């Protein structure tokens, strides 16, 4: 049939494209077998078509509604639209005068599992999957709000990847929504496979090492962000949602913080902040204390340190840089290896390699302790990107400290701070709410105050606080 040939000509593929003639109806069905539900094709498409053929083309819409008991049915004469739908898991009934496109999607989907990178102790155990529909259903099932907006975009001239911009209409800042839409419309790629790639297209400062959007695999975290007036961006094929705007403190908050009492939540956050400080500063401070400012350490400790360094051929800076590099190497190798092997390798790398290096006299035992603390500190940071940047800025800080001592550490920290002061995420300063000294919003930052205290919605993400104010007003009136 000519119409079928036209479709096949546009597809330029033959491996899994099936063309099934239906002699009783005089039509042909085209579908891609790898992405359709074959049972639905047989039961809901072929059978009715055989039993109830179409009479005249002008009655096609009425016929389609009565005969094909499938949700999404579209009649078209446009070959381009038809082919696009074919790649989206639809089947096409080719008539001489046009096409009927029927949704029979049947992709193999992974069932939601607990995210490996964002474990929770008390929170929900499910995570996003690669399926956009599953992810949306996970959000919808928890957030039954009619103000929930899901704006669709399609990226990739070749991949035609679906992207959803999700937000709560009355909570999200209209300016930020507008800016997000503008940036998304600007994206021009031929292939989009992951939210990470999209993130780089829409972030404020592509040269900054700091992540300007927060990625998460957790639906509960996403919904929590939506309730704060933030936007979520879901990409088909990626289990990571992007949350915008992202500020520095948001990378140190986890879902568990809100499931726990204020004391536990605050204590854990304090541990995380301490881990961050430890991770960034401990190697540099070790160098500063031993090389430049030994007076800052108690004499006994200083003597102990000097004794452990006896016979070490490398200068302390190289020793630190070498060990830090080794830790990164072990971590990266562990990531790329099969899971079971990776764990064993980490143990081997961490303990055996460190021990051997000490015995061989390449590094001092104290340096192994310092580097171990640094690595532990970085792993306590909940967000992968934030943890990675934290680990990486240690290296230039080591250099600065090796030249200027503790003042080098301070100088480099101030430089990083200056950079963070200039950084924004969708127009929201990265150091919000500290940079605005908005004391009301500090209640859920480094520490977590009791829930009753956080009555006002945080203005950190530019959300209007309207309904909270109304609620308080109503309560006061009685």
């Amino acid at each position, binding site marked *: 049939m000519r119409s079928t040939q036209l479709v096949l000509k546009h597809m330029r593929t033959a491996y899994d494209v099936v063309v099934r003639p239906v002699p009783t109806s005089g039509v042909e069905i085209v579908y891609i077998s790898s992405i359709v539900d074959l049972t639905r094709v047989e039961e809901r498409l072929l059978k009715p078509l055989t039993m109830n053929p179409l009479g005249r083309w002008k009655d096609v819409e009425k016929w389609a509604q009565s005969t094909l008991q499938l949700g999404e049915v579209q009649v078209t004469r446009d070959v381009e639209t038809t082919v696009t739908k074919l790649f989206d898991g639809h089947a096409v009934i080719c008539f001489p005068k046009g096409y009927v496109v029927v949704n029979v999607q049947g992709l193999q989907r992974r069932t939601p599992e607990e995210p490996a990178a964002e474990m929770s102790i008390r929170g929900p155990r499910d995570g996003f999957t690669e399926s956009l529909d599953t992810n949306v259903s996970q959000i919808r099932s928890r957030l039954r709000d009619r103000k929930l907006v899901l704006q669709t975009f399609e990226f990739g001239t070749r991949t035609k990847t679906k992207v959803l911009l999700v937000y709560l209409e009355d909570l999200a*800042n209209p300016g930020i929504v507008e800016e997000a839409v503008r940036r998304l419309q600007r994206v021009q790629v031929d292939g989009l496979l992951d939210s990470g790639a999209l993130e780089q297209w829409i972030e404020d400062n592509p040269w900054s090492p700091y992540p300007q959007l927060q990625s998460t695999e957790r639906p509960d975290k996403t919904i929590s962000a939506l309730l704060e007036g933030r936007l979520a961006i879901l990409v088909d094929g990626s289990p990571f949602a992007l949350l915008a705007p992202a500020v520095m403190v948001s990378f140190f908050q986890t879902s568990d913080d809100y499931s726990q009492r204020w004391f536990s939540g605050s204590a854990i956050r304090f541990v995380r902040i301490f881990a961050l400080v430890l991770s960034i500063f401990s190697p540099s401070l070790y160098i500063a204390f031993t090389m430049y400012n030994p*007076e800052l350490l108690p004499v006994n400790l200083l003597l102990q340190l000097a004794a452990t360094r006896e016979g070490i051929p490398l200068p302390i800076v190289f020793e630190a840089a070498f060990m830090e590099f080794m830790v990164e190497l072990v971590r990266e190798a562990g990531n790329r290896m099969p899971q079971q092997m990776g764990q064993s390798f980490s143990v081997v790398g961490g303990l055996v390699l460190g021990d051997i290096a000490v015995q061989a006299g390449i590094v001092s035992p104290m340096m192994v302790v310092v580097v171990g603390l640094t690595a532990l500190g970085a792993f306590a940071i909940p967000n992968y990107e934030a943890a990675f940047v934290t680990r990486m800025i240690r290296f230039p800080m080591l250099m600065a400290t090796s030249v200027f001592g503790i003042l080098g550490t301070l100088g480099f920290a*101030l430089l990083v701070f200056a950079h963070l002061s200039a950084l924004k995420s969708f127009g929201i*300063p990265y150091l919000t709410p*500290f*940079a605005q000294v908005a004391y009301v919003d500090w209640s859920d930052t480094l520490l977590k105050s009791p829930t009753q205290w956080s009555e006002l919605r945080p203005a950190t993400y530019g959300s209007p606080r309207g309904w909270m104010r109304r609620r308080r007003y109503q309560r006061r009136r009685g």
Partner: protein
Amino acid sequence: MLKQRNRNAMAILTFEAVLGSGLFEWVPAWLDRVHTAIWVPFAAYVLVAAVLSLLIVDLIRALDPQKAPSATVFDALMRTRWLSAAINGLMLVAFLIYAGIALRTAIHLIKYIALPYTPVLVLAVLWMLIPLQLFSGGFDTVLRFEVALFWPTLIVAIIMLLLCLEVSDLANLLPVWPTDWGAVARTLPQLLYLLPGWMLFAVYLPLFRDASRHLGSMRLMVLTGFLSAAALQALNIGIVLVDFGPYEGATLNWPIVEAVRIQQEGRWPVLFLLPILVAVSSVINLYAYAAYRIVVCYTRIRSMWVAALLLAIVIILCVIPESLKYVFSGYAPVLELAEAIIYAALLGLWIRTKMKGRPRCS
């Protein structure tokens, strides 16, 4: 959306402008002249500075909020363009020199405590990388840097200062009443050296005026910022007195650093240097950005090259004098003249505004 230029930020900016301008190098000279009666010139300083603060805020209140942002308060209120341009030019020069002096003082302190052999030029160039980064983001970025660092720095500084009371002797505060009023009177003119921070108000407060219409509390916040800075200065003077007494305190270069040094077997000066350097960094940023703002308002060239050029001038002004002593003596005549003109102009402007009875905005 959280406002960047809010009341709290204004108070912090005031605090940093006031505190960073006088790096306590005046304490030994005052102690030398008036001994334990140092509280008298200090109280006079607080009084003069408070009046000056109120005067400037009063001027800012007279600004027309509908007008486009101007470089300084002189631009906004003076009808004679060439005169306001001349005063702004003078302010530009003064700001660059003050930034250079603050930078050189900080480097001197660094060399004195931690890095005696590092060249001044190297430290000055590296230091200027901070404002260079900040200026690309405009005034709000500078403000964010100042404000976000404020509390951690202040808390560390206050804790370290309070720990200095460990070896104090309250008898060193006696006699409280001045024995030589003539010496006190001779010290009073030196108050003027502590006032350059108020020139910054002429540049920065109109920016808050432009950004926010809620000015009822501007006066209160400026006073809060200033009085907090004065309280910290008073704590400093008190610690120097109770730790060393007026005579020994007068012989030390940096008495407050020495007060920290005598605690815990001399371990802490380097740590105390950290909050000091953050405070100096803040005030250098404020001076340099004020200069940058004046240049941008007149040339309309908002470029990193302009910022880099101004910062290069600051570096040159910092490096040229052979020692810290020459920094003060070399630049003093220029600064005294500039300050006299600028404060006279401010006063004149205030009187004119009052006499004209310009309608105020609430």
